[in-house]
């Protein structure tokens, strides 16, 4: 480990200790208090500290690709939201679960002390929206990770093996695409049990088809490339060839696609939670907040307006970034269908 990495960790540790009760750690590992905060922090920053120099350089290139100011706005929105999600407890004055006085604090309009007002139980809406970012973003990102994993596996396997495997897998993809996704998601979520983990699985398992098609196309192209042929001729095992020579080439389009998909997943999760089929009470998500706001839309408009604005802004950030990535990677692909492609 070089000294520079030690330095990064040393700087990180005090911050870690300040982070009380990071729910991200609790959510992922079932840890409590400082341990949870440390885990959350390490999960986010260790990859950076450990990353090879080439990977770091590549990351910088990725940012540089986004010459377009709108795409950069999207990138900064996304980074800002990640920051908000991780540091939520430090950013808010009130705890999201702290109930106020049953009479005075109930349905208080936005003011200096409560930027977004309070709800039925006198809880601060601003802190709830900030904490909602964790759950909404966490679920969306995790579900896209699941679907990218699935899609990459299926697409790569189909293209690499070809012949009947390709036929079977692609017919399977067609079948999955023939499902009206929302109906399927509603069905699976309603029939089993609502909860963050299951929503991640369901959204992930119903969103891999686009990725599979993109990966398949890329792998089919890569298979014919000379260095891949050379590697195979040298007797490098198939998996190794896939991992080292073929899949890296699919990274760029998949990244653009999955960024767009995160926005989509946020919308899907928020709708599920809005119906009451998604995230349940001890958790806070934006869709849930809107659901609560619907009961008193007229007198307490702030309950529904702010979480909805948060969703729109977040999804817009991901869409701008994804669009920018796609244009940067392939300037000719002007045919943006955006969130339509599910």
């Amino acid at each position, binding site marked *: 480990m070089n000294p520079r990495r030690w330095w990064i960790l040393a700087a990180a540790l005090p911050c870690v200790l300040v982070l009380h009760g990071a729910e991200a750690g609790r959510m992922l590992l079932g840890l409590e208090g400082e341990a949870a905060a440390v885990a959350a922090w390490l999960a986010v920053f260790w990859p950076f500290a450990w990353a090879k120099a080439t990977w770091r350089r590549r990351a910088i290139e990725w940012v540089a690709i986004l010459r377009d100011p*709108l795409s950069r706005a999207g990138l900064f929105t996304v980074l800002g939201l990640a920051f908000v999600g991780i540091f939520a407890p430090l950013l808010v004055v009130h705890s999201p679960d702290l109930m106020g006085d049953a009479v005075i604090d109930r349905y208080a309009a936005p003011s200096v002390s409560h930027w977004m007002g309070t709800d039925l139980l006198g809880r601060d809406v601003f802190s709830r929206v900030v904490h909602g970012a964790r759950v909404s973003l966490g679920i969306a990102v995790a579900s896209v990770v699941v679907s990218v994993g699935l899609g990459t596996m299926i697409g790569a396997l189909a293209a690499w093996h070809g012949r009947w495997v390709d036929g079977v897998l692609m017919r399977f993809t*067609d*079948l999955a695409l*023939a*499902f*009206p*996704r*929302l*109906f*399927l998601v*509603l*069905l*699976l979520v*309603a*029939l*089993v049990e609502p909860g963050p983990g299951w929503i991640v699985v369901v959204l992930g398992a119903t969103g891999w088809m686009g990725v599979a098609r993109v990966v398949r196309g890329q792998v089919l192209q890569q298979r014919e490339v000379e260095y891949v042929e050379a590697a195979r001729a040298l007797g490098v095992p198939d998996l190794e060839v896939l991992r080292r020579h073929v899949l890296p080439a699919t990274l760029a389009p998949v990244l653009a696609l999955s960024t767009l998909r995160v*926005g989509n997943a946020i*919308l899907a999760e*928020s*709708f599920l939670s*809005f*119906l009451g*089929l998604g995230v349940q009470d001890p958790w806070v998500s934006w*869709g849930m907040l*809107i659901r609560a*706001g*619907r009961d008193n*839309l*007229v007198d307490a*408009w702030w309950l*529904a*307006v702010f979480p*909805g604005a948060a*969703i*729109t*802004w977040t*999804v*817009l950030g991901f*869409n*701008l970034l994804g*669009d920018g990535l796609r244009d940067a990677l392939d300037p*000719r692909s*002007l*045919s*943006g*269908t*955006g*969130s*339509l*492609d*599910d």
Partner: protein
Amino acid sequence: MTVYLLRRLFTSLLLVWGVLTVTFFMVHLTPGDPIDLLSGPETSAEDLERLRAAYGLDRPVAVRYVDWMGGVLRGDLGISIVSQRPVLDVLLEAVPRTLQLTVSAFVLHFAVGIALGLWWTRRGARWSTRASDVGTLVLYSLPTFWLGLMLQLLLSYHLRWLPSGGTPSVALDEVGFLTWFVENVRHLAMPVFVLGLAGTASVARVLRNSLLLTLQEDFVRTARAKGLPPRVIFGKHALRPASVALVSLVGLGIPFLLSGAVATEVVFGWPGMGRVTVEALMARDTPVVLATTAVSAVLVVLGNLLADLAYAWVDPRIRTQT
């Protein structure tokens, strides 16, 4: 063309069958059944058994599957466990409502989207391109259900222009046609707007992008060199190839509209398929859930089929491939 058509029809049927089968097993193999919700804590075990037997839930899954598939082929979708009505009746009430909503939104968003796309292309200015790009992205990013709530708050509550939801309560034979029509439009205005908004943006955007690409082609340059007036180049040479991209949106647009219709119907209390589905899911009304999923699957597959046929119609190269 006939071979192509038949092959596409056959795969479509297979797809519908696949979706129905997967859905059936998903519903029947997950724990819990509607009887749990029908019965109270004091229902005796024998009564539970009797209820299960009455709905045929005590038989093996495979038997139920064959039975249900047979029913579907005969047009018998079973009986709703909650409302005790034939599922077909429930669907026959809900589907036209959803079609009313989605078809209006569909027609409207294609009409407005095409007009908008043409206008954007003709303008051609850099800033308007950027503005329209951002504008469409904003529209994609709006959660449908939230947009509906906001419109209700603004247009129904504060301005009192439109009813906040539900269906028109006047019958055609009681009031004049005009009143009836206006009532319908007033009730449909907000849901259709909310439902069609994102679609309008995508139609406009896709049309503009593919027109811009087509206008760079050699045959357009040739047409220009021949001295044809811009309107002919635009309308005759560029529009047809450019509309191929639009056709794919027809197919994609149907699942999109159906999903959107669920949110719209829930928010605006529109008694269509989406609302029926959500209510049936909450009540675990299995026959209804299966039926609505089936109908939406048929619509999605049909949409894709139509899109493929339209492709073949617009682009002769696809026809000759088969």
